[in-house]
């Protein structure tokens, strides 16, 4: 039941069959999955989708598998939370959080891309998979590979947060720490993929992997009542998610699932690793790589492969890109936790803080229905807030002691 015609280079339009390929062999441009939308049209309607199970596979026709998904059956369809408390703090009327910090099974949006990549790896007959990762992808590959008995090799920068490392090792796979940053890890992996017959989710499975991100955007539009928001703020690392959210909205328009979208798409980075937002603000149409230096490690990619298209996505949709300091990232994490009871990781702190900044600049206004994309869970990056929260009082287990301490405890709150 495949609706995939093949792959096509986004830069030079060269066509390729459905194969494990990382980039266009002629110009090194990214490869896009091309679907037969006319064949999909009669198979997808609001009603059909609405009657399916609450996971990302309710959009199976728009995902690049030939058969049933064999990995990550529970991934996706995370809550879209109406965030009135946060909206008040931000001075907006309608704010929603798309909360992938509870995506199954590893608490980040990477479960979506890995569900597709590993299902595809099985279709291609790989018995070993791998990835280069800033942490969330590592967790998702290790867990999902374990669930179907695939061998996995995960390559990470040596300085990742402990939660991300433990959350990979627990699945008893092969974890290799590289003495360097993510871009160094990627460089090594690009050489490994040429030598071993492995399915590397972000390299030779990249065209398929990246499609999994679309489900984030598809769900946002469905959960808003089959329409796109006025604004969506999306964290950017390699720049793939933001471009795929736009592709999702475009596909839904094409299939008449939603009215024409006028959604302005905003990209968020940490100032310590902001090659894409820097290009937006400088009015450049090329990305100058940087050496990452930020606590937002999950989005610390200095040389973003999809940066150019992320830039185009923001500008063509009428959006913009902004970045925030590490201090603001932590404030963003705390703001979301205190107002909405959602503990997000550093990338989420970036997105919340950038949203606040964009509102301050007047780029998002009070009437704009705004979706903030939360892509990962705060329990994985506890280092970011350690030492910044009030220490709990320790008292003997006596009521009098408690009552003596109460004013103090209340004062902390």
């Amino acid at each position: 039941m495949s609706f995939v015609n093949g792959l096509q280079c986004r830069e030079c339009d060269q066509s390729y069959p459905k194969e494990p390929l990382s980039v266009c062999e002629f110009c090194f441009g990214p490869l896009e999955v091309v679907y037969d939308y006319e064949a999909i049209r009669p198979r997808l309607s609001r009603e059909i989708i609405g009657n399916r199970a609450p996971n990302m596979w309710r959009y199976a026709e728009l995902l690049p598998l030939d058969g049933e998904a064999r990995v990550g059956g529970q991934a996706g369809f995370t809550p879209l939370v109406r965030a009135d408390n946060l909206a008040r703090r931000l001075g907006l009327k309608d704010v929603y959080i798309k909360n992938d910090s509870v995506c199954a099974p590893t608490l980040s949006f990477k479960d979506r891309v890995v569900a597709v990549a590993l299902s595809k790896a099985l279709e291609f007959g790989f018995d070993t998979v791998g990835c280069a990762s800033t942490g969330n992808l590592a967790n998702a590959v290790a867990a999902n590979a374990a669930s179907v008995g695939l061998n996995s090799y995960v390559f990470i920068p040596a300085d990742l947060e402990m939660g991300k490392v433990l959350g990979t090792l627990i699945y008893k796979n092969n974890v290799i720490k590289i003495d360097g940053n993510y871009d160094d890890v990627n460089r090594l992996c690009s050489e490994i993929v040429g030598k071993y017959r492995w399915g590397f989710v972000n390299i030779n499975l990249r065209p398929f992997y990246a499609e999994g991100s679309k489900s984030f955007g598809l769900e946002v539009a469905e959960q808003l009542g089959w329409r796109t928001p006025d604004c969506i703020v999306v964290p950017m690392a390699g720049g793939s998610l933001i471009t795929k959210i736009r592709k999702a909205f475009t596909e839904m328009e094409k299939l008449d699932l939603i009215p024409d979208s006028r959604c302005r798409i905003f990209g968020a980075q940490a100032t310590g690793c902001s090659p894409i937002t820097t290009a937006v603000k400088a009015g450049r149409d090329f990305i100058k790589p940087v050496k990452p230096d930020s606590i937002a490690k999950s989005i610390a990619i200095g040389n973003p492969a999809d940066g150019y298209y992320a830039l185009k996505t923001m500008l063509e949709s009428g959006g913009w890109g902004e970045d925030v300091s590490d201090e603001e990232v932590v404030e963003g994490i705390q703001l979301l936790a205190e107002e909405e009871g959602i503990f997000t990781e550093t990338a989420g702190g970036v997105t919340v803080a950038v949203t606040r900044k964009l509102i301050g600049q007047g780029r998002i206004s009070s009437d704009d229905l705004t979706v903030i994309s939360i892509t990962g869970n705060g329990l994985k990056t506890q280092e970011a807030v350690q030492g910044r929260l009030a220490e709990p009082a320790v008292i003997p287990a006596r009521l009098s002691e408690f009552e003596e301490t109460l004013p103090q405890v209340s004062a902390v709150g």
Partner: protein
Amino acid sequence: MPTSVRIPVQLRTLTGGQEVITGTGGSVLEIIEDIDRQYPGLKDRICESEGKVRRFVNIFLNEEDIRFLENLQTAVTEKDELSIIPAIAGG
């Protein structure tokens, strides 16, 4: 002595399957021109028609992306190694 150049999988059809070739020159550009003389077509695949490095190609001098150095004008010695690497997604 010429400088070693590591070739990505995508370009090995032009180098007869070789992973590492050598080129002579004092800058990255001169070396690219030299390897293009030996393996015609290589420069076209690495650079756009105006001569700039293609958007999705990364060239490293040893461990450093040449965009952090002097781009194509970066000086190269015989002890250095150049690597040509496609841009990679991930996170």
